[in-house]
């Protein structure tokens, strides 16, 4: 018997769901802890997004969390079961008129790198994106030769739709390619019909 993932959510309200290893839920201002703020100020973590450190205070981090309305924008913390602090976050930015959602995964706690967290979280959230959220395409951008991220996208069935040469600037000032990955709902449904 196939058990579909469950998502506690109504438009505009906090989202909550669980995978085998993690609780995934909407972050609130109370989640702007030193750990969370530290990720935005860590060059290694921000390097995942090819972004400079933000030098944020707690107030600025709270302001960032507050930008997500849990209607078309979601900023979801990834919490290992039984732990009160997240190890990273998963962001969904939906364009309802286009039925298109852009996703991003950031793992702030480096001890969880290489443990297939994005694979588990993003794979789970695709059920929400193509289901309750009503999207017809999901996409993501990988900045630079982030080989594990390329693997994670390919493993979930995303296709590389293009490579933008020298699209962004790295922290070292060098130009970096951007890999565009996309997954259509029809493709995702076909994959799940076969399993």
């Amino acid at each position: 018997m196939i058990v579909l993932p469950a998502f506690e959510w109504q438009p505009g309200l906090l989202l909550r769901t669980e995978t085998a290893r993690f609780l995934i839920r909407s972050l609130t201002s109370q989640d702007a802890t030193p750990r969370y703020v530290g990720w935005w100020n860590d060059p290694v973590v921000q390097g995942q997004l090819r972004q400079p450190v933000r030098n944020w205070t707690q107030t600025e981090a709270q302001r960032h969390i507050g930008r997500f309305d849990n209607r078309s924008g979601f900023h979801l913390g990834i919490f290992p079961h039984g732990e009160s602090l997240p190890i990273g976050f998963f962001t969904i930015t939906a364009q309802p008129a286009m039925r298109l959602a852009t996703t991003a995964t950031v793992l702030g706690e480096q001890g969880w790198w290489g443990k297939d967290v994005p694979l588990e979280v993003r794979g789970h959230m695709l059920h929400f994106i193509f289901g309750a959220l009503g999207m017809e395409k999901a996409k993501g951008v990988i900045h630079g030769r982030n080989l594990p991220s390329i693997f994670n996208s390919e493993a979930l069935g995303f296709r590389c739709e293009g490579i933008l040469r020298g699209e962004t600037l790295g922290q070292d000032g060098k130009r970096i390619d951007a890999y565009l990955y996309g997954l259509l709902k029809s493709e995702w449904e076909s994959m799940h019909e076969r399993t």
Partner: protein
Amino acid sequence: MNAHETARRLMAEAFGCSPEEIADDARLGHQPGWDSMSHMRLVLALEERLGRELAPEEVVSIRSLDAAARLLA
């Protein structure tokens, strides 16, 4: 050792298994041991073998044993 055999050996080393455990139709997402970190090891091993960095289009093409072998041919 031909390109296919070399690719199989590099894959086995990257995935931490024997070459015999690499399926003839080994594909990303369907080969035991092929995870995000072993994929990174595989790409780096191919580049070391080739003596150059792979182009972005080549990086995203590495989805199977056959694809890895084509890069080495």
